[in-house]
């Protein structure tokens, strides 16, 4: 029975990992940029949700109504005002700019929010269902649901809308997309905005489940990297499966071995299947 419990825990954790990675994989696949600031974006989202919920006294999940649009606008502003400009000079300068952004954001959060550990507790934190020998925390189920809904909405948006199609087209061939009337720079801005919005969701999940510090971003960046490598860049179904694989590795390995096993799987994928699970 213990194995069933492990698998369930792994899948529950996988949802959070998937939503962590989905923003990263979008920027990889569409803007062709390694966004080293993604971890800080996520932590920024975590702070935003925590602070808004404690100040206004509302449920942390409700803060998404505010944090998603704000983070979207910040992402779009960063891409249009900063990253698009340096991308003209090549991909390395853009990579360095995201590295710089990650340092600036980390120090800014340290300055604003101090180095104290934070956590956004909800009323449902301590509720646990027991089905026979298996126990499932309500919080984990809610987080998985939030992650799934986010990813499903995102993939429907990419599949069914003009804007979504234009994002996919840009990721396939920028010049051909511009011949269809798509402004590539504007599309990059929207893509970064969306990536930032998913970071707001990931941030909320992290704030609800764990404690976090201004410096926590780096670890989550690595997890997001793992999801991108295993799932394949730009692939949303790949992101889901990769999230679950990493979640299982984390749960099975436990506190001592979890990270190590995750990175070994990542290296294994880089050697054997560098294009990821679902890419050809």
């Amino acid at each position: 029975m213990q194995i069933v419990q492990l698998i369930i825990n792994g899948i529950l954790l996988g949802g959070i990992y998937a939503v962590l990675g989905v923003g990263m994989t979008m920027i990889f696949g569409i803007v062709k940029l390694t966004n080293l600031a993604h971890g800080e974006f996520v932590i920024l989202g975590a702070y935003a949700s925590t602070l808004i919920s404690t100040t206004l006294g509302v449920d942390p999940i409700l803060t998404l109504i505010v944090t998603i649009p704000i983070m979207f606008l910040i992402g779009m502003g960063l891409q249009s005002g900063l990253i698009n400009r340096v991308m003209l000079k090549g991909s390395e300068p853009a990579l360095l700019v995201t590295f710089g952004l990650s340092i600036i954001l980390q120090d800014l959060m340290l300055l604003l929010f101090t180095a104290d550990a934070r956590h956004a507790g909800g009323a449902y934190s301590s509720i646990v269902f027991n089905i026979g020998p298996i126990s499932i925390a309500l919080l984990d189920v809610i987080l998985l649901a939030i992650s799934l809904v986010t990813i499903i909405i995102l993939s429907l948006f990419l599949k069914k809308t003009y804007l979504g199609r234009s994002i996919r087209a840009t990721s396939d061939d920028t010049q051909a997309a511009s011949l269809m009337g798509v402004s590539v720079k504007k599309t990059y801005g929207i893509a970064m905005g969306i990536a930032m919005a998913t970071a707001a969701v990931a941030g909320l999940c992290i704030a609800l489940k764990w404690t976090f510090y201004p410096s926590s971003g780096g670890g989550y960046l690595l997890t997001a990297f793992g999801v991108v490598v295993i799932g394949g860049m730009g692939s949303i179904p790949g992101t889901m499966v990769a999230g679950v694989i990493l979640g299982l590795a984390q749960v099975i390995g436990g506190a001592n071995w979890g990270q190590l096993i995750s990175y070994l799987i990542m290296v294994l994928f880089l050697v054997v299947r560098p294009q990821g699970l679902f890419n050809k």
Partner: protein
Amino acid sequence: MSEPILKVEGVQAKYGDFIAVHSATLDVPEGKIVSLIGSNGAGKSTLMDTVAGLHKPSAGKIYFKGEDITGLPAEKIVLRGLSLVPQGSRCFIRMSVEDNLIMGSFPKTARKNVKKNLERVYSLFPVLKEKRNDPSGSLSGGQRQMVAIGRALMTEPDCLLFDELSLGLAPTIIKDIYANVKDINRDGTTILLVEQDTQRAIKTGEICHVMLKGNVVLSGLSKELGDDEIKKAYFGI
């Protein structure tokens, strides 16, 4: 001769220090099929990219429907009714055939007629309807060229530019596609055709321009140009 829908006047285009097009001047009269021929490296494709807005000209002027479009980006030019079918089709390979075509309706002016235009493309290329849900990357070269043409038609162009339409395609497929090009022209779309297949280009286009080393060196009605004259302009002898 009717009023030119597209006028290219002394356009120069460079890649860094390399001048690919020196000074190209040509007219495309409304409603006609015009062909542009020239050997490899004559600057035909660069000129097409420059007219469509993918490449910025370093000198000269481009007028479309009497308006100056020089230096406008591609995404603005397509809104005015000028659409390029680029060399090598350049489909969105990970997207389905139908999504590729619907991308052509991205310009807001073309969106309200998506259904009608989609039906038109499917009746022009029935094989695309069969394969509408397949990723365009799985298609053959000829079918990809059809997707690229269909996608350009979906933008509702008044003038279509074709860059190396027959490149790498089997002769029977080339024949079919050229029949389609004539159909498209008959429906009222002006066509500028860039070709390496000189014979076919001269036969299809009512008017012919010849490019050599970055300049348009000969222009005239195809039936009035002699073989020798074209040969001399083509090879620069």
